[in-house]
């Protein structure tokens, strides 16, 4: 048989490499802006678009989906062709994948600062963008699978298995978590409510970490570390065990984000058990990566690529040890809602994903431009300042997380909270926030030095658009096989079968089951819990728009330190009308679930206008625009109807009189403020927000020392 000659497409790799570099810088600078705002809120420059609540989602989306996302495509499009000994199946699809992905990122850059958000973490983009993501993702998958089918290498190298799992699982997670009912082009409500929504969200959220930040990068690790060190992977068998064990266990770990919340305990425990088991495959993978370099450590000293990758894999090992530990309930009781979690994810983000990406870039650019790296002194500089950046970033936040958590929990001998004022616990750790911003800055300086180094490398080389290679074509049938009949047909089309059946079952099942299962099943178990009034609902949407959930939780855990500070602990039945849930994941400010009726309307008025006037030293920004903007009530009726569709029991025809009710309630709040001598524009947004805040958690609030009747 004669060898076939073919050409690898390098232009698509170059495109994704440029996008990775550009969005890396942008995403990190947005992160730095957010970090600076935690030192002093003036770094939002008093604009709504740059306030922390809006740019924190922009930062997470930019670094996860733009920086790491483009990094995944860059590495996959490079390695897949070479591992399968064939060009990508379709250049057109490759380019649709590229431009489609960049358009999605661009739409995120526009919509998130405008406050167009679903408020579900790492899935904040609104429904039209969700659909676009699904389509582009399918294009990527189709291109990948067709390439696999047209391969000239029968054996699928372990990296490819990681890519396949990434595609299948991310598609599934994205579709299930993005079920939402559109109200307008820019606004939708989650299909799920309260506890349900929280569970689906963190099932998605944790697996986004698993299947977007981990499995594709492990695939890249299994390709690029052997290539860069010119050594075979330490144990190919271990890599296979690593792969199958990891994907089977990961999918169950999500509930560890909801420990001690209103989620039923058995579901929490499933999350704990599986999270803990994850240590084994994760460390198997880490050791396999590091031991690949056995006997070749002298090369690590000389190669920038390997240096970055070694630290990356080490960081992977640290986070995947820390993650299971944080999933233990007694550790989680301290870590949850604190900066410890932020430190943890940045060991993964800056260390594992960041350094792996840099390593791949330092490997690919000289190769694609057919030259040597411009300056190894500069890449050494990048390596050291980047490593220091990670340390200066993470250590202060570990310190801050521990300190604050212990302060929250400390009681005096008389049995009172030692730090009853939440703000005290914030001002205590402000210096740590400043140190974190410093760590982040020097990490970015390193990235800038890499950009310069790589651009100079490109200038001195010449880009190879295509690379010629040759290999034998694949024979049609696997010789060792003896199957017959229908089985044989399946075997000839194994991958299509896998993909189509999975997608079909997952989508079809979801569409059929979700409405029947969820909408009517949300029967409130607490009789006193009522739907939001139209004004409260609008106020809630403002709360979502401003991203308040990024700093404030709405989940009082059943600890004495929390019930003393905030009030009665949160019950599952209180959230049945919350589409989407707003439990939050971080307490930069205090929990708000029992904020209702705690302060006067005028306190909230003054606090939102100038938080420092009510709490000197606070790092919460002012929201002056809420006092100037007119509340838009055009969608109110539609929102009520959407809620009815989702099973919220508003009376039939209530949408017709909703705006009337809304005006009435907002006038009464305005009058209330007037009594305290505060002038407010009628119909301004602040009235809706005050209405919502005053309602929060009051449905079962314990009154006059009498416990409310709670059945849940």
């Amino acid at each position, binding site marked *: 048989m004669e060898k076939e000659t073919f050409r690898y497409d390098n232009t698509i790799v170059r495109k994704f490499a440029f996008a990775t570099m550009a969005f890396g810088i942008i995403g990190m600078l947005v992160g730095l802006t957010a970090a600076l705002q935690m030192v002093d809120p003036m770094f939002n420059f008093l604009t709504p678009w740059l306030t922390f609540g809006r740019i924190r989602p922009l930062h997470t989306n930019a670094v996860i989906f733009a920086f790491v996302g483009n990094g995944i495509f860059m590495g996959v499009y490079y390695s897949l062709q070479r591992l399968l000994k064939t060009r990508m199946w379709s250049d057109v699809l490759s380019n649709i994948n590229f431009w489609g992905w960049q358009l999605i990122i661009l739409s995120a850059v526009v919509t998130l600062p405008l406050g167009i958000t679903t408020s579900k973490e790492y899935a904040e983009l609104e429904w039209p963008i969700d659909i676009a993501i699904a389509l582009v993702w399918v294009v990527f998958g189709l291109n990948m699978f067709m390439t696999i089918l047209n391969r000239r290498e029968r054996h699928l190298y372990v990296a490819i298995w990681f890519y396949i799992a990434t595609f299948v699982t991310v598609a599934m997670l994205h579709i299930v978590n993005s079920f939402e009912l559109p109200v307008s082009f820019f606004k939708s409500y989650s299909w799920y409510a309260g506890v349900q929504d929280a569970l689906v969200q963190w099932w998605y959220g944790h697996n986004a970490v698993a299947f977007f930040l981990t499995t594709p990068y492990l695939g890249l690790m299994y390709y690029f570390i052997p290539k860069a060190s010119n050594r075979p992977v330490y144990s190919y068998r271990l890599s296979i065990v690593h792969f199958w064990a990891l994907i089977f266990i990961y999918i169950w770990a999500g509930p560890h984000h909801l420990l001690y919340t209103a989620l039923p305990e058995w579901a929490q425990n499933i999350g704990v058990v599986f999270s803990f088991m994850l240590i084994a495959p994760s460390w198997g993978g880490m050791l396999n990566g590091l031991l690949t370099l056995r006997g070749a450590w002298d090369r690590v000293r000389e190669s920038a690529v390997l240096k970055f990758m070694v630290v990356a894999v080490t960081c992977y090992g640290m986070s995947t040890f820390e993650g299971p530990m944080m999933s233990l309930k007694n550790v989680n009781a301290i870590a949850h809602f604190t900066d410890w979690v932020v430190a943890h994810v940045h060991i993964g983000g800056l260390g594992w994903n960041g350094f792996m990406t840099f390593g791949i870039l330092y490997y690919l650019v000289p190769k694609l431009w057919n030259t040597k790296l411009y300056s190894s002194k500069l890449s050494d500089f990048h390596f050291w300042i980047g490593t220091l950046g990670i340390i200066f970033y993470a250590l202060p936040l570990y310190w801050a997380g521990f300190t604050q958590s212990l302060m929250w929990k400390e009681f005096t001998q008389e049995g009172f909270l030692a730090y009853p004022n939440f703000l005290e616990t914030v001002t205590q750790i402000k210096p740590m926030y400043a140190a974190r911003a410093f760590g982040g800055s020097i990490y970015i300086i390193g990235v800038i030095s890499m950009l310069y180094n790589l651009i100079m490398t490109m200038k001195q080389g010449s880009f190879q658009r295509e690379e010629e290679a040759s290999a034998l074509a694949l024979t049609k049938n696997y010789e060792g096989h003896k199957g017959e009949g229908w089985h044989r047909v399946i075997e000839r089309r194994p991958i299509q079968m896998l993909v189509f059946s999975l997608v079909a079952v997952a989508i079809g099942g*979801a569409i059929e089951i979700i409405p029947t299962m969820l909408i009517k*099943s949300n029967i409130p178990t607490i009789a006193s819990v009522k739907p939001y009034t139209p004004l409260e609902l609008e106020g809630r949407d403002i709360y979502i728009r401003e991203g308040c959930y990024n700093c404030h939780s709405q989940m009082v855990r059943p600890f004495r330190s929390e019930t003393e500070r905030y009030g009665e602990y949160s019950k599952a039945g209180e959230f049945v009308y919350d589409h989407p849930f707003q439990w939050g994941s971080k307490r930069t400010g205090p929990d708000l679930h029992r904020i209702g009726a705690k302060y006067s309307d005028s306190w909230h008025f003054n606090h939102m206008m100038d938080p420092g006037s009510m709490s000197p030293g606070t790092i919460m920004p002012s929201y002056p625009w809420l006092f100037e903007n007119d509340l838009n009530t055009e969608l109110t009726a539609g929102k009520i109807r959407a809620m009815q569709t989702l099973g919220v029991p508003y009376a039939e025809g209530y949408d017709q009189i909703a705006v009337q009710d809304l005006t009435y309630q907002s006038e009464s709040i305005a009058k209330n403020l007037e009594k305290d001598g505060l002038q407010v524009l009628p119909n301004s947004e602040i009235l809706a927000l005050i209405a919502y805040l005053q309602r929060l958690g009051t449905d079962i609030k314990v009154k006059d020392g009498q416990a409310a009747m709670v059945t849940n």
Partner: protein
Amino acid sequence: MEVIFLLIAISIVAALGFLAAFLWAVKTGQYDDDKTPAMRILFDEKKSTETNN
């Protein structure tokens, strides 16, 4: 909370899909040889000259 049954169902479907993929991989000999695949990826750079197996 009913949603957990849905999530379990979907997770099991995904797991079964992966199980099918695993069985396919074993049956078609993907894992018969766990030495050369690790070596082979190191040799795909030399243009048109190397032998393919």
